[in-house]
């Protein structure tokens, strides 16, 4: 595994989608504009296009996520692919089969694409390095590392509401340490030229190196969202809510929960995003989640189109043997 970006082929085209880090601006823009053309597909009588007809897409979820798997499944079916869902949590891994043995077996079933969710950071890279050159790997979330299609659908959402990235202030709020969504958003936002990306949270939930990634770090929510155009709230997972990282969900909500009063500090036309599933009353007040600034449901709709774009673009690239 060298240091060459493993997601691009020798022509610089997207071959695997593993991370938004190192993804050229032109590739991101192509995915977003391709997604535009798929937005209307859902509203047609026949909700599919034949771009992936005859292709086999395997959803390999080594970690459970019905929601994400479903969005990928819908995206692949709308591209006319044959979709196979493998719940690896309960099958091969439980029998002690190694990750790469599983991949070899499924490759032998004429797979064209693997959509991979794995609990360990970097697992899709290992798979991408291992598969035959005609197979594409899409990262559907790996450990704390990346969730690139979520990052891209967030970019699509921001572009939809704000048009131009180059004059925005974007605040990412909450558990950035454990969030693959945050990392994917950060790299995409900086690549697209957002001048101010902020990380907001208690020091227990902020990883080292945020400044090196080009972020401004805030520990007070009020300061972090003041004047923001976009606020991305992150999910706080149950296991983080009590212990040494945070004393309680109640205290977290008091200081980092987004309420209408705090939202008023942002720009009047600010939008509020959340990758879902939300913890109402923990990171976000229901009045905000259901309020005028919330674009949380449109994010889900855009997610299908963005995933269709990512799958079809990756599938169209070829790699020399």
């Amino acid at each position, binding site marked *: *595994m*060298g*240091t060459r*970006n*493993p997601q691009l082929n020798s022509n610089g085209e997207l071959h695997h989608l593993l991370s938004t*880090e190192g993804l050229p601006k032109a590739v991101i823009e192509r995915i977003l504009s391709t997604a535009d053309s798929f937005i209307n597909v859902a509203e047609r009588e026949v909700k599919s296009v034949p771009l992936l007809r005859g292709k086999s897409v395997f959803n390999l979820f080594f970690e459970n996520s019905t929601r994400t798997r479903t969005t990928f499944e819908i995206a692949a079916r709308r591209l006319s692919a044959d979709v196979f869902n493998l719940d690896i949590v309960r099958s091969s891994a439980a029998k002690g089969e*190694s*990750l*790469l043995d599983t991949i070899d077996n499924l490759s032998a079933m004429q797979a064209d694409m693997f959509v991979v969710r*794995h609990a*360990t*950071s*970097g*697992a899709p*890279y*290992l798979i991408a390095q291992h598969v035959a050159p005609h197979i594409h790997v899409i990262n559907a979330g*790996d*450990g*704390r*590392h*990346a969730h690139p299609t979520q990052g891209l659908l967030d970019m699509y959402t921001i572009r939809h509401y704000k048009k131009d990235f180059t004059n925005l202030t974007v605040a990412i709020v909450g558990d950035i340490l454990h969030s*693959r969504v945050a*990392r994917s958003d950060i790299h995409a936002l900086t690549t697209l030229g957002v001048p101010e990306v902020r990380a907001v949270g208690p020091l227990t939930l902020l*990883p*080292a*190196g*945020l400044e*090196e*990634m080009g972020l401004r770090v805030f520990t007070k929510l009020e300061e972090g969202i003041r004047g923001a155009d976009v606020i991305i709230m992150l999910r706080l997972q149950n296991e983080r809510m009590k212990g040494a990282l945070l004393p309680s969900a109640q205290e977290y909500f008091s200081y980092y929960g987004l309420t209408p009063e705090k939202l008023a500090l942002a720009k009047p036309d600010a939008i509020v995003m959340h990758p879902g599933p939300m913890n109402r009353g923990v990171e976000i007040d229901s009045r905000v989640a259901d309020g005028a600034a919330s674009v949380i449901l449109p994010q889900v709709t855009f997610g299908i189109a963005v995933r269709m774009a990512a799958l079809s673009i990756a599938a169209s690239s070829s790699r020399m043997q």
Partner: protein
Amino acid sequence: MRILITKGRVIDPASGLDRVADVCITDNRLAAVGERPADFRPDRTIDAAGLIVAPGLVDLCARMMEPGTEGALKVEMQAALAGGVTGVVCPPDTDPPLDEPGLVRMLRQSSRASAGARTYPLGALTAGLKGETLAEIETLSQTGCVAFMQTRSLPHDNSVLLQAMRYAKTFELPLWLRPVEDTLAGAGVAAAGAVAGRLGLPSIPVAAETVALQTIFELQRATGARVHICRLSSQKGIELVRLAKREGLPVTADVTIHHVHLIDVDIGYFDPRFRLDPPLRSARDRDAIIAGLADGTIDAICSDHAPIGDDDKQLPFGEAAPGATALETLLPLTLKWASENKVPLVQALAKVTSRPAEVLGEDTGRLTVGAKADVVVFDPEQSWRVTADALKSAGKTTPFSGYELQGRARYTLVGGDIRLGG
């Protein structure tokens, strides 16, 4: 048996000798270094013109996989000889751990039968390495253990470490400790910093090392126990060792050859070959290691050899077994460090010969008349590519695979017996 090694550039770090000279061996000991005595009639002559003659390398940490894997030691000993290593310290993190005299006897027997390098077993400091109760360390010492180690991290319970130091001091036995505070290291797999933050890898803060070092030094002040610090990794940790030595605490320290060369950025896109323990840290930490070697804060460089199979390495970064095969790359990577940092060879080789032997308290690692004839004759210019086929070790995974390295042993002699190149 009388052996003459002639016309080589003889480098003996212990005495500072560095010139073309003859080395004469009678039976298993060095009979002359410098001029060949007029009456010395060799049975065997090794022409070392253009080659370097040095003490055999003494490696303060190499896993030979015994007990645990039958027959593994024999293979790894071939790797040691190919690497010019004539003495290997075997840590007790075997399966089962080296905590009983019977196991130590088996290891020594297996080692003798292999006709490889000398073996210096480290006994487990605590039963089963669990960090709870002391192993029978004086009995183990009588069986041949040179020191006692707690692998991975300090005992969870500080009182166990305190009593271990008191007990070891009773018998004047040295402790070898990994400066890792496990409650801070947790399940981390990479050094805390920008790289781990970006890749989303669970991380180990520098404080895991510095807090452990402070604990060790404070308990040394209370007990007077002698401690060798194994595998330093951070700038701050090195500074603490520097101060402890200045204070006069009985402490020595080593680093791995990987940490002399590599940093966390080299992990690239989750390359599991770079999953090491301790984790690779920043360029600043690596520079501090190089400075610590130069000023003597760090006594020795070890290989930290671990012959890990592909099944345990071809995994996502955080799940891959930490470690690398390294017995055969220790010498060329030491030469590489010397040439890149303009360290005279006599000083560079000291870190893998005389200094580690002094840490052990053994009369090897030096070309002194009367000392055991553990000698390596190597070609410093010979370049070779690190490939699976080129490596004798069962472990084929190293961060340096594919590299073109310079320097390879031609002859390796252990106690006057030509075990490589014969």
